[in-house]
């Protein structure tokens, strides 16, 4: 279970102003909101990639910030993070990129054959052909393949929690749908808790158990997809309508342009 308590974060201006949110163990949770409302910032506070000015994050009842560097390392081992633009290491092959997802001391202990086997398995799970991609470097992969390698890196260490930061950004509709199906399948197969930050509202509503919406640095809505669609709050309604219109426009653009 991930618990966010009164999270505040400012850069030049306040981004998060007291967010309280809870993601239950094993559930798939989506976080929506207009651009710049701090969705990715909130996600990054989960594993200390950004430190909140105030407030705390707890994972299974243990504070991320109060236990010092060793506790933070433990937290990070439990969590797989899928970055918006994959964040693959440019100079490493797919094999080494994915292997980096294994804890350092595990990686040092593994034989080369075992390392390849673990990476192979992870690539297989994300529907990539290991034989074709293992020796390639990220610049030789397509956008969709990079996303899958990024997902393979996040799952190879068998995490308990998966954090997804806009995993479908920059993908065409076919790849978007494929990645969304993959997210849903992985969350079920690996029995992990998933927190998905996405601008693809329809996709998020389709695959998640619960959703929340951030607006102006605070949580505007939290509930099931059905409740979200029926929410009378005009801000939520306007967001849903705009998201639907943007999705329709994207589809027309992709079809005819």
């Amino acid at each position, binding site marked *: 279970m991930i618990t966010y308590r009164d999270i505040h974060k400012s850069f030049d201006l306040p981004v998060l102003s007291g967010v309280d949110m809870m993601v239950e163990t094993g559930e798939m949770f989506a976080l929506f909101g207009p651009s710049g409302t701090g969705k990715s910032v909130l996600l*990054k506070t989960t594993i200390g*990639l950004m430190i909140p000015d105030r407030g705390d994050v707890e994972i299974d009842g243990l504070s991320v910030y109060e236990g010092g560097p060793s506790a933070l390392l433990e937290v*990070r*081992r439990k969590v797989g*993070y899928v970055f*918006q633009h994959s964040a*693959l290491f440019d100079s490493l092959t797919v094999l080494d990129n994915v292997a980096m997802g294994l804890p350092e001391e595990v990686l040092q202990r593994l034989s080369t054959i075992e390392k390849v086997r673990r990476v192979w398995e992870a690539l297989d799970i994300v529907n990539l052909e290991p034989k074709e991609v293992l020796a390639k470097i990220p610049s030789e992969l397509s956008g969709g393949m990079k996303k899958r390698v990024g997902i393979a890196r996040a799952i190879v260490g068998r995490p308990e929690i998966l954090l997804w930061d806009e995993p479908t950004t920059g993908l065409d509709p076919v790849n978007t749908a494929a990645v969304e199906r993959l997210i849903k399948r992985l969350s079920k197969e690996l029995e992990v808790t998933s927190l998905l930050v996405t601008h693809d509202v329809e996709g998020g509503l389709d695959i998640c158990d619960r959703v929340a919406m951030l607006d102006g640095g605070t949580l505007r809505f939290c509930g099931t997809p059905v409740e979200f669609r029926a929410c009378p709050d005009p801000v939520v309604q306007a967001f849903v309508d705009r998201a639907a219109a943007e999705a329709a426009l994207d589809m027309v653009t992709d079809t005819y342009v």
Partner: protein
Amino acid sequence: MTLPLPAPIVRWLAAVGRVARITAEHAGELGLLSWRIMVAIAQLKVSRHDISTQLYIMGVQSLPIVFVTASLAGIVTSQQGGYQLISSSPQYILGTLVVQSVILELAPLLTAIVLVGRIGARITAELGTMVVSEQIDAFESLGRDPVAILAAPRLIAGVITMPLLVGFADVIGIVAGMIAANIDVGMGTETFIYGARLFWHSWDLVYGLSKSVVFGFAIPLIAVHMGLRTRGGAEGVGLTTTQAVMFMILTILILDAMFPPLLLQ
């Protein structure tokens, strides 16, 4: 009742305060980064393979440009020295002038400035790109220490390669100066060497190499620090790289000016 300060003075004070704050911020961050690098080295977290790679990039790949720079520095010093001294001083003084200039100042300073352009800018741009593409965040999310992986090997390689490159530049600069003296003013090798040995102090070599160690520490440290501070996209990387080059050159010149009162008394 106190009178308000005139607006230009308020603006000036605000600018001084801003510069002081930024300077203190950089100094604090550089101190912290140095400490984290030392801890990573002490805990043997730095990969030998990464150090070798950086030694090759900083050392071996820099040899051609250091060769050209040192040769030209030796040649120009010899030519200008010959022009100014030949009618008024004994010929052998030119040997003294070239050797002292190259060892004390030209080789360490010019090699450092070449490395700022070749290595410092590269490190800042590389790390800056890794920041904006979230690769540094990825290292941290995977429980890896980016300082041990990226900063420490570069700093170790800088401290090792810089004195070696400066030693190489010393030899090349002196030989080039000797050849130029022979061609330009017809000075024989014996006369040049006589002049060089007449005022030779071994300490001068230690002095030049000591400077190079400090420069070899400062260049990668500032480059890494600035790279990790990068914000924004491609524009941010460009801006930070430019700032880093200015910062490194200024630091090299200030450090260079601090050496004579410390070590040449």
